[in-house]
């Protein structure tokens, strides 16, 4: 992955969106830096798509403003949007056209004339061999990938993907995840993506934002999330109290004894092998030793319920 230099690709300031009496977004302040894969998490109707649409200029914000690459004027935003790729909600495709033709439309719109790029982007998403098959006959996974190819034709530096794995089978999810990972690693793209599949998202994202009822309630990096999701070491042995004392003596580590046979350790998590060795050398029977973590779903529920 390319080196991050903390340059903001997208920054929003007090973005709000009102639909009649319903406020879809409340004062969203969000910052995405170059090279980040930013996972936007939220329930249906939490405002994820609305936020992405505002960034893409498809809808306008009722209040607040956005900056793309540090610029916020209308002409600057238009200029930087031309370097942005997006797939928002349903794949935007011409059903009667082939994959090549669909990409060609976007290429023409973007003023790109190198026709060999069509094959290249289709290859990147695994659709190089669809021939004369029309988009209406594609599976949902193929449509999602074609939409991604269309988004990539402009060589975007910033990609916005709304639920790119929505409706896909497990194979499709893995394929799409690999494509996104590859785009970030090989091409150094900055990516904003939303997904309902939170554990899936946790395998890609470097940063997260949780939107709940239109409010951005937390922005957190993957490292911070790891800490926040209560990682712990779980040990099941024949005598939990004795084991806790051994570990406390050897490593000055505080152990939480849950039962006669189970204890948990919330600190010095990188010393799991040392703990194991110390217990065995002290004659303890260790039946189970594992590194455990709260799932992203659990963390999401915890955070949203507390809000």
């Amino acid at each position, binding site marked *: 992955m390319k080196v991050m230099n903390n340059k903001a690709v997208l920054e929003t300031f007090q973005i709000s969106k009102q639909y009649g009496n319903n406020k879809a977004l409340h004062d969203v302040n969000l910052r995405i830096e170059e090279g980040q894969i930013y996972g936007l998490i939220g329930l249906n109707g939490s405002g994820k798509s609305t936020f992405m649409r505002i960034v893409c200029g*498809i809808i306008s914000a009722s209040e607040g403003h956005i900056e793309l690459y540090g610029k916020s004027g209308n002409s600057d935003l238009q200029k930087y*949007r031309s370097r*942005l790729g997006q797939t928002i909600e349903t*794949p935007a495709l*011409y059903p009667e056209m082939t994959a090549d033709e669909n990409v060609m439309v976007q290429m023409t719109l*973007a003023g790109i004339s190198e026709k060999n790029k069509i094959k290249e982007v289709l290859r990147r998403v695994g659709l190089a061999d669809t021939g004369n098959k029309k988009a209406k006959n594609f599976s949902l996974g193929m449509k999602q990938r074609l939409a991604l190819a269309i988004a990539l034709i402009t060589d975007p530096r910033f990609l916005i993907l709304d639920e790119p794995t929505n409706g896909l089978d497990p194979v499709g999810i893995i394929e799409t995840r690999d494509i996104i990972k590859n785009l970030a690693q090989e091409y150094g793209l900055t990516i904003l993506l939303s997904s309902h599949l939170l554990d899936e998202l946790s395998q890609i994202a470097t940063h997260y934002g949780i939107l709940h009822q239109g409010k951005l309630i937390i922005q957190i990096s993957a490292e911070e999330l790891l800490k926040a999701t209560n990682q712990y070491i779980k040990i099941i042995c024949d005598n939990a109290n004795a084991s806790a004392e051994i570990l406390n003596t050897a490593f000055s580590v505080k152990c939480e004894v849950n039962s006669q046979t189970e204890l948990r350790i919330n600190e010095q998590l990188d010393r799991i092998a040392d703990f194991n060795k110390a217990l065995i050398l002290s004659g303890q029977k260790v039946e189970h030793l594992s590194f455990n973590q709260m799932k992203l779903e659990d963390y999401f529920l915890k955070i949203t319920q507390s809000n």
Partner: protein
Amino acid sequence: MKDLLKAELYKLSKSRTLFYLMLLLFVTNTLGIITSKLLKNHVLQGQDGIFQAGTSVNAMWFGAFAGFFIASEFQNGGIRNALALGKNRAGVFMAKIFSMTICITALLFVIVLVQTIGNSIVNGYGDMPVGEFVVFFLKTFIHIIMFHLPYAGFFTMFAFLTQKSGFTILLSFCYEAILLVCGGFFENYKGQNLKPLLQFFPQYYYTKIDNNLTNHQFFVDGYLVCLLYFFVPVIISIFLFRKMDIK
């Protein structure tokens, strides 16, 4: 703007909508000529085929195009893709007007071509020298397109305001029906002479062109009325589209 127009031309070349509408008009006009011949109810020479473009039924096909080619872009995401590329909204609208004008031109061309060639075969060509006719044909055809421009303005506006194919077709139908009802009323009203009011409707000009070929004022009035009917919906649409949220 150049890229938007190029993309429209590419989509038109790949779309079946315009092709099917042209085919439909080819078939219906051919059948019309054959039926007329069989029923011997109206003998038209080939050189008069150019005046057969303006009927209300043809306007329905323009509405179908606005629905299936323009409004459908709101549903399939084409408009979204263009706007997310940072394209100017007025430019996006003008590109669609361009497509609509191409469609109207193509469909009218099919009609007048079939009417001219078909009637020439069935009833004879007429007495105008061919060279002179070609110039006359092209000049008249340009006038006819100009008199049909209001359809481009209104039907594209309907597509942008409703963002739905069905509603666009329905509104296009209503527009044509209103013009027909008003036209019929002014034409046939028994009391005060309301016929002069017909001159405020675009269809007056494309239906009466054959009787006014040497009337310079007719064309001046026609151009003014039709350009007004074209630009008013264009200005309204651009104003509204600039503020519109795209689904």
